[in-house]
């Protein structure tokens, strides 16, 4: 169970849902890692954004 919880913590940190760094996250060069991670996310957004549809809950 513990490895699964660690994975969950990593995913939550990478998704911006928690402020607590997961165990093993590098203490130095944090801003560089953040910049690289943002660049990857922006690339994914750019790659997929052409097909955009409206959010399901907007009309509720």
């Amino acid at each position, binding site marked *: 169970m513990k490895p699964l919880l660690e994975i969950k913590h990593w995913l939550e940190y990478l998704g911006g849902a928690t402020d607590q760094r997961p165990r093993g996250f590098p203490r130095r060069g944090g801003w560089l890692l953040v910049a690289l991670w943002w660049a990857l996310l922006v690339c994914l957004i750019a790659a*997929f954004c052409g097909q955009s549809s409206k959010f399901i809950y907007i009309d509720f």
Partner: protein
Amino acid sequence: MIFNTFSYFLLFLLPAAVGFRLLAPKWRAPLLVVSGASFYLFFSLTAVGGVAGALCLGLFLWEAWFSRLYRPGSRWCLAGIAQALLILFIFKYWNFATGLARGADNPWHWAGAFLPLGISFFTFEFIHYAQDRRQNRAEAGGFWEYFAFILFFPTLVAGPIKRYQDFLPALRRPSTDWATDWERGFTRILSGLVKKFAVADLMTAFTVHLNAADVARAERWVLPLWLVAYAVKIYFDFSGYSDIAIGSARLFGLKVKENFDWPYLRTNIAEFWRHWHMSLTRWLMDYVFIPLGGSRVALPRIYLNIIATMFVSGLWHGAGLNFVVWGLWHGCALGIHRWWAHRPGRAGAVPTVAGRAAGWALTFVTVTLGWAWFTMDISTALLFFRRLILG
């Protein structure tokens, strides 16, 4: 659209978030009101509702003024709840109700009906404040503070549904840690956009087939796959939306409560609902289930309260019989789970690994089959189940 547009980020979010942090504290609430009002007008005019939708900004002004009458135990609070429900009924349920009563082609039908932006969500915040003021569970706050609460644009359109008790202290003393807030906030926003674009929207290739014609002629084995795709789509769509809302609020230094916490990994339906659209579940618990008596009544009434609460949840999600059936589907599932969890000899029992695995599978199947009622009208959903079961 809205959250996945440049207009949202460049015209509203960034200027308002920067301004909020730079202005003197006394100007923060008015800034949120002005930015929220501009947001409402802009997106009503360009995306939802048009000029008539934009005029619904008046509802917020009226609510902000009317709320000043609320006192603990006051009947004005009940009047506030009644008017909020009336407004929701007129805009969202009028045609549904008159259609049920007198058929679709009736003289009462409102041909120009439209939904004001975010009406389902802001109505619930209006009701929460009125009821909590009546029961003296919420501080009145100032006019501009309450106005800022109801017009806080990151959560205005589709939640998370906020509580004034959480918002007011944060508004008065927002976080001043720019670096952490902006790093975490932007990470959250980008993650939400990736969820929307790279996962939810991809699923549309499958979910677009959930219509009568395609369901009628599809191979039987593909039907459950389409439904699983919808389960994936709605989770990534709405949790992505919530990520953007929560991340946006973080840029202001305001923390909004979470809306999702890995719901599809839960091992029973009650746990699912405690982790899916959490702000709505909490609202339904506090303003529907508990006022009905909650779990402190005779057993048959408990089941009735559960089903009634999920009936309200279904109706809130949409003015259609399919949404009512979806709510009742979950109400029945929650009732069955309650019976199972409280059956004699069950107290203190710890589920085995196999039991948890079976619980997870059963919960996922129940929720996924339930989405059939959510995404298709009644006749198409019935056709779907007939084809799924009988071929």
